[in-house]
C-alpha cells in the first residue's frame, strides 16, 4: 500500500512586489515528499531554494497554490496557526547556528522545551547529544566549540522536540568541507536510523547529490527532480 506524502504542494507560488516589479520567487511548484526521505534542494543563488524551504516549513505563506503538511492544509493559515503546525512537527537548522552564548550546550539543546512547557531529564538530553556526538560537551559554552560542533548542537536542539521533518537551510554553509561532510553524514544517519524526513538546501553539489532525492531549482521553478520511480514526480 502506498504511503500518503508528508508534504503535498500543488501550484505553489510565492510572489512579492519590489516597486512596480513582481518577483516570482517560487512560481507554480508541484511537489510531493514522502516520509523518511532525504531531499536536497539545489540551485544557484536567487533560484528560490530558501523561499521554497520557508514555504515547506510553514515559516512563510504561499501567495497561490495549495500546500499540505502532514495532512494539514496550511496555505491559508494565519501566522499563529502556522506556528502551531510547526511546533513539534518541524525542526530547523540554519546556516547560522543561533546558539545562546551564555547557555551551556545542554541548556541550548533543551531550550525549545521551555516553549513546549515540557521537561526532560538530563539523561534524555544526553541521549540527544550522543546522537550528534557531543555527549562530552554538555557543560561547555558555545564559544568553546568549533563551527561543526555548534551546528551539531543546533541539530540536537531541533531534534529535542522529536520532529517528523528537519528543515536545514544551508546547514553546511558556514563549515569547512570536512565538517560539512560530517554534518551531512549525521543528517543521513538520522534519516536512516530514525526515519526522519530531512529537507535541505545547499550550494555544495558534492554533498547535495548524496541525498535520496535531488531537486534543482531555477528562477523559482523545478528544473530537475531525481525522485525515485515509486514517488510521484514533481512537474516542471
Amino acid at each position: 500500500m502506498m504511503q500518503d506524502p508528508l508534504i503535498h504542494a500543488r501550484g505553489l507560488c510565492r510572489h512579492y512586489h519590489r516597486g512596480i516589479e513582481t518577483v516570482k520567487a517560487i512560481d507554480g511548484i508541484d511537489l510531493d515528499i514522502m516520509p523518511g526521505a532525504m531531499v536536497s534542494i539545489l540551485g544557484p543563488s536567487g533560484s528560490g531554494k530558501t523561499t521554497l524551504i520557508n514555504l515547506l516549513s510553514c515559516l512563510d505563506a504561499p501567495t497561490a497554490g495549495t500546500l499540505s503538511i502532514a495532512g494539514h492544509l496550511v496555505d491559508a493559515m494565519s501566522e499563529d496557526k502556522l506556528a502551531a503546525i510547526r511546533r513539534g512537527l518541524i525542526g530547523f537548522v540554519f546556516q547560522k547556528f543561533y546558539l545562546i552564548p551564555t547557555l551551556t550546550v545542554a541548556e541550548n539543546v533543551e531550550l525549545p522545551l521551555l516553549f513546549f512547557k515540557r521537561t526532560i531529564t538530563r539523561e534524555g538530553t544526553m541521549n540527544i547529544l550522543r546522537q550528534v556526538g557531543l555527549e562530552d560537551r554538555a557543560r561547555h559554552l558555545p564559544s568553546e566549540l568549533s563551527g561543526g560542533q555548534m551546528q551539531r548542537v543546533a541539530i540536537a536542539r531541533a531534534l529535542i522536540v522529536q520532529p517528523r521533518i528537519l528543515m536545514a537551510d544551508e546547514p553546511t554553509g558556514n563549515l569547512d568541507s570536512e565538517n560539512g561532510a560530517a554534518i551531512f553524514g549525521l543528517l543521513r544517519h538520522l534519516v536512516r536510523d530514525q526515519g526522519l524526513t530531512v529537507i535541505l538546501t545547499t550550494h555544495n553539489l558534492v554533498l547535495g547529490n548524496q541525498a535520496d532525492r535531488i531537486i534543482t531549482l531555477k528562477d523559482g521553478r523545478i528544473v530537475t527532480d531525481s525522485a525515485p520511480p515509486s514517488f510521484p514526480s514533481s512537474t516542471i
Partner: protein
Amino acid sequence: MTSYLGLAFNNLLRRPVRSALTVFGVALAVAVAVSLAGFNRGYRRAIEHSIERLGFQVMIMAKGCPYEAATMMLKGGTGLLYLPGDTLTKIKTDSDIKAITPIFIGVAQKEASSIRDDAAASFLIISGIETGSFTSMKPWIAFARGLGFDGGRWFNPDAADEVVLGYEVATYEQRKVGDQFLATIAPAGKADPIQHSFKVVGILDRTGTQDDGTVFLPIAAAQSMFNRPAELTIVGIKLKEFTGVKMREFESRWMKLPEVQVVSLQQVKNTLISLIGTAQTMVLAVAIIAVIVAMIGVINTIIMSVYERTGEIGIMKALGAFRGDIFQLIWLETLAICFCGGLVGSLLAWAGTHLIESAIKRLIDIGVQGSLVDITWEVMLTAMGSAIVLGFFAGLYPAWRAASMRPIDAIREGIG
C-alpha cells in the same frame, strides 16, 4: 533546564556593562524617590517631635511675623520682639489655662570659647525661665550624669551668676559643672555690651530639641541683663482642653490685646510643613524626571537587545515559541532590570541616609532637630514595587516588537 527567568537573566548578562549601567540609572531614580519619601516622613516626624518637646500647646508672643515666631522657638533667632510686662498677669486669669510659663529669650555673644568659631557659633541663645513652671511643661528634662556632669542642679531663682547649660552648649564649649562661663550681653538702649561671668551649676541631658543649644538663666536675671525688666518673649500655655473650638475661643479672647499674637503649635507645625513644601515639590519634580529618564534608558536598552538578537528570536519562534513566549521573555528582562535597579536604589538610599540628611540640613535651614530622613522597609518595598511597575510599562513596547517579529524576517535579518 533553564526557565524564562533564568533565560532573561542570562540574556542581560550577555552585555554586562550595558545592563549594569541601565540598572544603575533605575537605581539612581529609585534612590532619589526613596530619599524624598524618607525625607517627607522624617521631616514630619521631626517637626512633630520638636513641637511636642516644646512642652506647650499655645504660645503668646509679641505681634510680628507668625512664621518667624514659629521657627524662632524651634531653632532660635535674632530680631526678637518682646511682650509688655503685664501680659503674663492678664493672661494668667484665663480659666481655660491648665499651666503657663513665661520665657525671656535674648542673644548674647560668646566669650572665651574654647573652640574658635567666627561663624554662627559665636552667638548664644540665653533663655530666662521660671524653673518650676518650665519643668512642669517639660517633665522629661533631666540633668546629665557622668564625669563632669554629676551634681547638676537648677540655679537659685534669685541668683544672677548661675547658669544651666543645654547638652550641646556644654559639650561644644567643653564646660563641666562648676566651670566658669562667659557671655557678653548688649543691654537694650545702652551703647556698650557688658561681659558677664557665670558659674555652670548644671548641664541638662540631651533632649533632641533647641533646649540642647540654650543657656538657661533665672528669668529676672536675664531680663535685668538685657535691660528689659518684666518683658517677656514668649508665654507658653497648656490648655485644660485643647480642641479647635477651645483654641479659637482662647485666641479670640487674647487677640484683642493690641500687642499680642496667639500662636497654636498645630499652626506652627502646618506652617513649617508648608514652608518646606516648595522645596519638596522641586525635589519631586527632579525625582519624576529621573524616573522618566530611567524608563527611557530601560526601553532603549531592551530594544537594542531585541535588535541584536533578531535572529535568535526568529529561531526561537521557528522552534516553537509563540508570540506570548517571546513577549514574556523580553518583558521579564525588563522587569529584572527594574527589580535590580529598585533593590540597588533602595539600598543606596538607605545606606546614604546620613549623607542625604547632612546635605538637606546644609541646603535648607529647616529649624527642627533630630533625624530628618526616615527610610523604612515600607518605603523601600514601595519603591521596589514602583520600579517593577515602571518595568511593567517600559517592557511593553520592546516585548511587543519582539513578539510581533515574523520568524522568517527575523532569521533573514539575523543572517544579513
